[in-house]
């Protein structure tokens, strides 16, 4: 198994917008640790061609999704500057293979965060602002058909993200209870509260920091962390409008063209 070749296969799939087959079809023994090494290779290669890492995102943060994938922990990927869709800008569907949107709470860090002992409380203390956010997923595997090592290697389907136009201090309210209403074209897709994300979105971010510590990595001030989806993902196509309304945090909306 040549990790560099596998990383190149994923990078090519993204740049050509042509889905590939699961890596585990060819290498059934691919494990999650090796998959993160492939992810690192993908991210390094993108950095070498000019991408700037601006943060990270978590996935599989709900019990239902973990059970669906038969795993007992979340996963993460890295966000780069070219994935950021600014508020008011459209989601251009043909930049992606099979885009899907998820509502999330995003943490903008005011301090560096690293180490094996970081807790949710530490995350809240280190957070400058939280934003309502939409995570744009795009699996490089056809039909989102993958196993855990595949999706980890694929930078956890990271493809885009939108932050709402209002940032809030993470203090003085319990994010566990914060309501979220997710709509597509004005129709309700799902509702949730923050506890849908590993019990508390800050717990999710803390898990990420501890997980990164295992690989000698960490987060730095200015990083944005998407804590994990509150609901199931929704597929989007040109003409769709996706809206996530959060109590206390405000609204984030994206038009797809």
């Amino acid at each position: 198994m040549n990790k560099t070749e596998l990383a190149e296969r994923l990078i090519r799939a993204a740049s050509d917008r042509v889905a590939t087959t699961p890596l585990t079809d060819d290498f059934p023994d691919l494990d999650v640790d090796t998959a993160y090494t492939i992810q690192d290779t993908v991210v390094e290669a993108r950095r070498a061609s000019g991408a700037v890492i601006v943060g990270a995102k978590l996935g599989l943060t709900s019990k239902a999704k973990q059970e669906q994938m038969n795993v007992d922990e979340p996963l993460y990927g890295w966000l780069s500057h070219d994935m950021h869709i600014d508020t008011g800008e459209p989601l251009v569907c043909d930049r992606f293979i099979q885009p899907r949107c998820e509502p999330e709470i995003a943490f903008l860090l005011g301090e560096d965060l690293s180490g094996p002992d970081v807790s949710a409380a530490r995350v809240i203390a280190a957070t400058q602002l939280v934003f309502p956010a939409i995570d744009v997923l795009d699996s490089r595997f056809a039909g989102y058909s993958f196993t855990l090592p595949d999706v980890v290697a694929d930078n956890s389907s990271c493809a885009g993200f939108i932050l709402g136009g209002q940032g809030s201090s993470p203090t003085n309210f319990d994010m566990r209870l914060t309501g979220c209403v997710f709509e597509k074209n004005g129709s309700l897709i799902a509702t949730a509260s923050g506890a849908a994300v590993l019990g508390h979105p800050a717990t999710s971010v803390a898990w990420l920091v501890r997980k990164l510590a295992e690989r000698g990595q960490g987060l730095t001030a200015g990083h944005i962390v998407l804590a994990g989806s509150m609901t199931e993902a929704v597929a989007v196509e040109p003409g769709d409008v996706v809206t996530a309304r959060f109590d206390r945090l405000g609204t984030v909306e994206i038009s797809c063209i």
Partner: protein
Amino acid sequence: MTSLDRQQAKNFADALYQARRTRTPIDPLTEHLPDLGMEDGYAVQQLLVERLVADGEVISGYKLGLTSAPMQRLLGVNQPDFSPVFASTVHEDGADIRVDAFIAPRVEAEIAVTLDADLSGPHCAAADVYQATRGLTAAIEIVDSRIRDWKITIADTVADLASNGAIALGSRVVPLDSLDPRLIGMVFTKNGDVVATGAGAAALGDPLAAVAWLANTLAPLGAHLPAGSVIMTGALHAMVPIQAGDTFRAEFDHLGPITLKVVGEEE
């Protein structure tokens, strides 16, 4: 609408009445008359309610059911359903709920709306409900089906008091003020584990719109919602089965928590 005659409706109401008393489920009404629809269900419900009121039951409010698109799809309808709620079935926060008081009980967390003015259809809008609302309360509904194994069609559940078993209400009635009921988040735990989360919009898009729907639906029946009515506006998540020994807690942003303990026969 089928040719359900008054005698058949009365027989169904009697069968449901006995099922409630003896806690013994009955076969779906639609097994006898497969074409029964929603209006037939309400005809039976009305006779059942009359009989319970004659027994001394007092209507303290209403419950709405089928307030989510998935539930409406499941039962092949495009509107919610409703039933009166009787004062004798209203429990307080922290109450013990006896599992043997029901047949096949399940629980769901909801936002309850308490009115402090009369509300009448047929032109009631969510904004009218806002004006007439004293406040919102954290609530749990215990749903139960007197129909065997929950094998319900829309006619069956409507006839069976919209599958209402009992309700539990928190003690706080929180004024609406600047709250947006659609966005109020809720975490539902069973024995400390999160089993569901949701927000108010799960109830027909807006709990206040759900109350407006009820007022408008009652109007042609010659009924209205009197001041003081408590309306259970619909589940914020999929219903959860219960067992003796379970503790359920629904914690709402802004409204606070409500807890129920499920106890068995010996306790």
